[in-house]
């Protein structure tokens, strides 16, 4: 390993600009002559729009234009789309209601887009929005996930019972048979609480139109600018694909919420042409709470069957998933193919059957949020496994070990084939780091102080490296999920890598450069990573699902192989040797068995001056591209152990120790990987203890600010003990599995398992706030008095 190669904790190249305030985020871009957009949003969760009178607003100071859904329709601008078709059990396609960028006839959640005001200043746009007169016929709203299908409210005409689909996976008959022969059945009811992603940078968009060239430009907070361009052009019809440039510059966190194509950027691009000026919109935090796609929101009943030896025989799961008022870009895939295929966890479970009913409600759309389906699956499996172990009187660690998959490849009953792993190795290491053997002593010591100490496990697995295009195509995806890369070697030997991945905190400018430095043997500062601009990078699928290492870097590796192969040909001509005798090692092309060699930079120069070979025999230049399509998902897995202490008098839960042992396959930069784990754990602990989006019965979001929605702060978290085990991923050339979502997937059940262990009963839901824990602690103390 070199100081900047694969495996080195290289300090990040991008940090110089971030620590000095020189990062360039979308809101930092100001275009000449720009006007400001402000969206008038529905104050009601469900209402018919009888009329909109924009007249009073258009004469307000500074107003450039006011547009409604009718204006978009007149220009034949299509609605927003959901790009993953799910079929119900009966074979019928999911019921996708229309999703106009600006409301047409009806609003379906608080924050839904009614009109846009474009003005000289943001303040003027806001003032004018108040002058728009909307005549609403307020309708009853449905917000409750479990009640949606029965509610006397119809969110979309296409779905009389508010059901988007009734989907299933697994084998029902085999599962029923497994339960029939079970010695023990454990049952659990779970709510996976609705979350708001809340990257600290709010969404923003600047649309621009050049009448001279008929070119459009969109600066947007996107995790996948090419997908945004494709959807905006091919489906929404704002501009032709080749005339639309989408730039996603520095992006301040995404966590899934910036994958999707939203109303605001659609309107900004379209309106820029209408008003002949750049149009800028920046979300404030309240708008973000109201209209960024939310995450999770499942209601689940699950059962686990075990035999007389404590071996798991079967799992059956019924989940109702709330998708909100409209189907967001990838929403339908989250509670289906990103969820049920993970229900086998790390365990050898012969029979699994899962049913998912997805429902519409009068709430913000729900889509992928860090982990996307996999945290929901892990919460089901790991709560159920822990509860089963307790009911059987077995140690939860040993119960897991007994049921771990140990032979690979392993085909689960829910369509996944795990390629490799060593789950017991992660467990052993985690038990050691967590000092599990002395836990009872610590518990007794806590008890002496009147505190309740608990320990909770989470043996999670995830499917990352999303994904083989053919496989996802057969499951309903509207796109392929490969990644692209182009390696441009300059005559001076410096290298630019154009990648379809997008970095919004992951540190690609460093890790991708480490790969290049490692493979080409050139200094890391000779490498630039270019991403986030559709005029520079030809196409790419973007960054989500922990895919940029396993898929994005594999594409780069493939392109680098081609560069080296071409370099070998160039060197052979220059060194007057046969190509077969040229070896590339430590950044030098040499003739085997001699000391004749050319440095990488010399070969680059020779490739461009083309003096030593005929252009007919060998093309000049040194530039290669590659598309990499994965052959399988990757399966990062690990064990997290949470140890916490509850003060039964106040309900305050304090996490005392956090142990994470993860197997991410080959690691490019351990510093960055550990940082990803830390951040994921924090979001998972946030879900378990603090966060929850709450709508009241009328559909008002009562947690629409950082005052009301409890984000994890430094004081809420401990330092984490992070360990690694490594089984290289066999399905990609770098052996990478992915690390971006692990913490958020692993953490929630670890926390709740520790709380239930401390309390001695299972009756606690997320978020386990001090009030909830206090009530649960009183129940544990005095079951009758607390009734």
């Amino acid at each position, binding site marked *: 390993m070199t100081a900047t190669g694969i495996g080195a904790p290289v*300090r*990040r190249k*991008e*940090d*110089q*600009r*971030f*620590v*000095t*305030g*020189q*990062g*360039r*985020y979308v*809101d*930092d871009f*100001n275009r000449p002559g720009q006007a400001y957009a402000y969206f008038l949003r529905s104050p009601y969760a469900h209402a018919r729009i009888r009329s909109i009178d924009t007249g009073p607003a258009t004469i307000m100071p500074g107003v450039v234009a006011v547009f409604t859904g009718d204006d978009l329709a007149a220009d034949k601008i299509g609605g927003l789309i959901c790009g993953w078709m799910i079929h119900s059990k009966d074979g019928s396609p999911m019921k996708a209601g229309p999703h106009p960028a600006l409301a047409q006839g009806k609003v379906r959640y608080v924050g839904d887009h009614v009109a846009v005001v474009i003005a000289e200043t943001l*303040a003027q746009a806001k003032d004018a929005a108040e002058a728009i007169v909307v005549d609403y016929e307020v309708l009853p709203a449905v917000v409750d996930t479990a009640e949606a299908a029965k509610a006397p409210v119809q969110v979309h005409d296409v779905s009389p019972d508010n059901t988007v689909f009734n989907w299933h996976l697994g084998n029902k008959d085999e599962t029923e048979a497994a339960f029939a022969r079970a010695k023990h059945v454990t049952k659990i009811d779970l709510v996976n609480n609705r979350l708001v992603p*809340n*990257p*600290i*940078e*709010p969404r923003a968009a600047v649309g621009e139109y050049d009448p001279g060239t008929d070119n459009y430009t969109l600066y947007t907070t996107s995790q996948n600018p090419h997908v945004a361009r494709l959807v905006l052009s091919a489906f929404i019809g704002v501009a032709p694909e080749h005339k639309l440039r989408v730039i996603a510059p*520095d*992006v*301040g*966190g995404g*966590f899934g919420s910036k994958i999707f194509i939203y109303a605001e950027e659609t309107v900004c691009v379209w309106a820029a042409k209408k008003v002949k000026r750049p149009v800028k919109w*920046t979300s*404030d*935090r*309240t708008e973000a709470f109201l209209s960024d796609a939310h995450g999770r929101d499942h209601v689940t009943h699950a059962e686990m069957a075990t035999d007389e030896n404590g071996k798991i025989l079967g799992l059956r799961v019924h989940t109702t998933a709330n998708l909100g008022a409209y189907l967001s870009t990838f929403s339908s895939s989250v509670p289906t193919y990103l969820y049920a295929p993970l229900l086998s966890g790390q365990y050898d479970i012969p029979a699994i059957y899962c049913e998912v009913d997805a429902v519409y409600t009068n709430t913000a759309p729900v889509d992928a949020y860090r982990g996307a389906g996999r945290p929901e699956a892990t919460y089901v499996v790991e709560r159920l496994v822990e509860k089963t172990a307790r009911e059987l009187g077995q140690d939860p660690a040993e119960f897991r070990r007994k049921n771990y998959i140990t032979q690979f490849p392993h085909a689960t009953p829910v369509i996944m084939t795990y390629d490799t792993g060593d789950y017991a190795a992660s467990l052993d290491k985690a038990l050691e780091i967590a000092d599990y053997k002395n836990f009872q002593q610590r518990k007794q010591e806590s008890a002496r102080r009147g505190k309740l100490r608990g320990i909770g496990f989470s043996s999670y697995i995830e499917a990352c490296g999303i994904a083989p295009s053919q496989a996802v195509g057969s499951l309903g995806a509207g796109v392929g999920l490969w990644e692209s890369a182009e390696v441009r070697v300059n005559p001076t030997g410096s290298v630019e890598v154009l990648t379809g991945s997008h970095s*919004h*905190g*992951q*540190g690609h400018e460093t890790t991708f450069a480490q790969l290049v430095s490692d493979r080409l043997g050139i200094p890391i500062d000779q490498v630039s990573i270019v991403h986030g601009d559709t005029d520079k990078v030809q196409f790419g699928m973007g960054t989500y699902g922990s895919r940029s290492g396993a898929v994005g870097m594999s594409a780069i590796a493939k392109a680098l192989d081609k560069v080296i192969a071409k370099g070998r040909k160039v060197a052979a001509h220059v060194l007057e040797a046969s190509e077969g005798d040229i070896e590339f090692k430590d950044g030098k092309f040499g003739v085997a068995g001699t000391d004749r060699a050319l440095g990488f930079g010399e070969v680059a120069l020779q490739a461009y001056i083309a003096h030593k070979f005929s252009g007919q025999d060998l093309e000049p230049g040194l530039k290669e591209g590659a598309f990499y399509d994965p052959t399988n998902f990757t399966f990062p897995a690990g064990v997290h152990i949470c140890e916490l202490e509850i003060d039964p008098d106040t309900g305050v839960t304090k996490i005392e120790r956090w142990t994470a042992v993860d197997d991410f396959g080959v690691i490019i930069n351990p*510093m*960055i990987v*550990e*940082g990803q784990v*830390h*951040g*994921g*754990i*924090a*979001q998972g602990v946030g879900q378990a203890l603090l966060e929850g989006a709450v709508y009241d019965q009328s559909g008002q979001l009562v947690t629409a*600010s*950082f*005052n009301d929605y409890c*984000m*994890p*702060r*430094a*004081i809420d*978290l401990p*330092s*984490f003990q992070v360990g690694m085990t490594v089984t290289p991923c066999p399905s990609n050339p770098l052996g990478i599995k992915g690390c971006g979502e692990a*913490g958020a997937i692993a953490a929630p059940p670890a926390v709740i398992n520790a709380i239930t262990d401390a309390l001695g009963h299972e009756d606690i839901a997320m978020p386990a706030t001090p009030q909830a824990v206090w009530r649960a602690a009183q129940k544990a103390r005095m079951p009758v008095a607390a009734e």
Partner: protein
Amino acid sequence: MTTVSLTVNGQSVTADVDPRTLLVQFLRDNLRLTGTHVGCDTSQCGACVVHLNGQAVKACTTLVVQANASVVTTIEGIAQGGELHPMQAAFREHHGLQCGYCTPGMIMSAIDIVARKGNGLDEQTIRAELEGNLCRCTGYHNIVKAVAAGAQAMAQAPLRQAAE
């Protein structure tokens, strides 16, 4: 409109502004100092923290008229002569940032914590003192390490502190 005069990162600035202009809007829109960020509208996230007369303030809840005749330092103003401030260097060295959006506010708060609490900061003090700053990426683990190390490094660079 009203006229304000203040010193920002060592430079005198005078401008006519709408009286409702926030300090953060003035910095970002008038001076194009876009390192100071806006992450919320309730003074909770701390992405906008700057120093006003040497003390940390949230520029999203400070009117620029309140900064009249004052000295303001932003994230763009703490590196000296091309050399990072010790706290900036510590955030980089300890991977105390990922997306970078909360980072300017974090660093400005951290420098303020050192000014108030000294150079020998323990973990609990740092965690408690960061109550006004939200980070969604790092889980705070490496921010806490960075602040502790930055505080120590600031003790090694007293001249720099005096210069600020």
